[in-house]
């Protein structure tokens, strides 16, 4: 089964702790130029609809969707903004194409995090204003509480989380666009400053500037545009409870539902048998492990063994975040999901260079919107139509 939609072009810019001198519009223009060039399309002629993913407070501009058309070649064309991670934009693009509204859609998301002067304040304002915000504590508290509950439930330890950091930062050494490649020892992670114990400084992905643009096309058109279409086999999304009080703690049930929706469309019963590569959210190191379980790529009881045996390394059975993830590439905010999707596309095309995983036919990308949210999206991609 397939959605009848393929990714036919990818482009990025930045992926750097600070992209000094370029405006967010210029970052978007650069990524869009590359994506359109990759797809062999011109936005003024060939792209029927445009989807951007952004959040006003992160941009420092109210009604930010008004500011996106020009740098994408989208003036006087159908444009919409999704206030969410870029994968929600991919879902929107799939629907636009499948419903016949468009044949070619561009999806964009970016981070100009280095322009943000008060990120903590913005994140605090994402907390419930009546019940939670008056405590005045950093929203990292939510991550610390979730990490402690997750480790308690699964029996996994801080050492396992440190292994994720070491792996992803090391994987980033083979990724030329990664912002934070490093050979980090697990002991360094353990000894890094506690932020909201058990969460420590090196377990938190550091922010980066960057932009990703994808071009999606209908199944009829895709083979005309590229010799290597990457098919969207399934795409799902889900939100849990916004309430800290009544949400599920210690497991990502909303990721599970998003994944099941995507796997269902792809006709995949047991993803652990089918998926060759996973790019999952690792905004916090423990989240990679929690998300692997929610994606049904590992049982909680298997994760320690998978880490210790090297199964999740780039040359292992199930490479996880071969790109370096957000820990290695940088935290790109709403562009995180598109960065992971771009990595999957490059891997499926066999264009991932030194970090190329062998024999990739099916890849999964997953996003989470960060604390304090419970929103996730999952896309399943393949070289065959399914």
């Amino acid at each position: 089964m397939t959605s009848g939609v393929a990714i036919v072009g990818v482009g990025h810019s930045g992926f750097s702790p600070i992209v000094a001198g370029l405006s967010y519009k210029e970052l978007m223009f650069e990524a869009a130029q590359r994506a359109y060039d990759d797809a062999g399309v011109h936005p003024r002629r060939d792209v029927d609809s445009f989807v951007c993913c952004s959040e006003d407070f992160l941009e420092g501009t109210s009604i930010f969707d008004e500011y996106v058309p020009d740098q994408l070649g989208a003036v006087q064309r159908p444009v919409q903004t999704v206030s969410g991670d870029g994968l929600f934009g991919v879902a929107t693009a799939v629907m636009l194409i499948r419903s016949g509204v468009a044949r070619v859609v561009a999806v964009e998301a970016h981070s100009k995090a280095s322009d943000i002067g008060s990120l903590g304040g913005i994140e605090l304002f994402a907390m419930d204003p009546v019940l939670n915000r008056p405590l005045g504590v950093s929203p990292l508290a939510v991550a610390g509480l979730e990490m402690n509950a997750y480790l308690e439930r699964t029996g996994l330890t801080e050492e396992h989380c440190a292994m994720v950091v070491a792996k992803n930062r090391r994987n980033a050494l083979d990724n030329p666009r990664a912002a934070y490649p490093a050979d980090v020892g697990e002991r360094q992670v353990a000894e890094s400053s506690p932020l909201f114990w058990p969460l420590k400084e090196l377990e938190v992905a550091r922010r980066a500037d960057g932009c990703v643009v994808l071009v999606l096309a209908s199944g009829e058109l895709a083979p005309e545009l590229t010799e290597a279409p990457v098919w969207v086999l399934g795409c799902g999304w889900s939100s849990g409870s916004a309430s800290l009080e009544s949400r599920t703690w210690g497991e990502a049930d909303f990721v599970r539902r998003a994944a099941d929706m995507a796997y269902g469309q792809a006709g995949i019963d047991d993803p652990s048998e089918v998926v060759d590569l996973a790019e999952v959210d690792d905004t916090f190191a423990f989240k990679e492990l929690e998300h692997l379980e929610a994606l049904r790529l590992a049982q909680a009881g298997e994760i320690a063994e998978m880490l210790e045996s090297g199964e999740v390394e780039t040359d292992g059975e199930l490479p996880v975040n071969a790109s370096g993830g957000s820990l290695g590439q940088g935290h790109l905010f709403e562009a995180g999901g598109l960065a992971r999707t771009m990595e999957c596309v490059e891997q499926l095309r066999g264009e991932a260079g030194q970090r190329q995983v062998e024999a990739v036919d099916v890849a999964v990308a997953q996003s989470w919107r960060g604390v304090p949210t419970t929103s996730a999206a999952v896309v399943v991609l393949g070289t065959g139509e399914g």
Partner: protein
Amino acid sequence: MLDKLTDPALVRRWGGEIPVRHRYTPGLAGEAFFTALRDRGVLLGSRCEACEYIYVPCRLFCERCFAELTADTEVGPGGTLESFAIGYVDVEGEPLDEPVTVGLVMPDGADAVLFHFIVEQGEEPLEIGMRVEVVLRPPGERTASILDIVGFQPAAG
């Protein structure tokens, strides 16, 4: 073609602030919860009969089955520590003078948790699953706010 800047000293940036003021309405359920907290010193929840789930704070509707609920179920004051975390940084990431401990506490009789400070810890290390109890401000100092709760402390005995 415009060349990119190579000297960071030449990067020009404009400062800006978004002055945002808002008044948040706690709603019918919020009024009931905060009034009960201020006037009677109790934690008020809502039971969903269909879901066999007791929310705290109380609320007007069930997020699981969409049923309309009433605020009629008192929970606590004892409870169980479901998770905790110890903060060393403030909202902007600057070091705190003193660490702050927060926890998720499931009050007795409730299925939901409250997010609040853990106070008066004493010598024993915190453990998930331990018994705790709510600590309230003195009646005359309460303002019908979540801060009428000082936090939760390990239960005596």
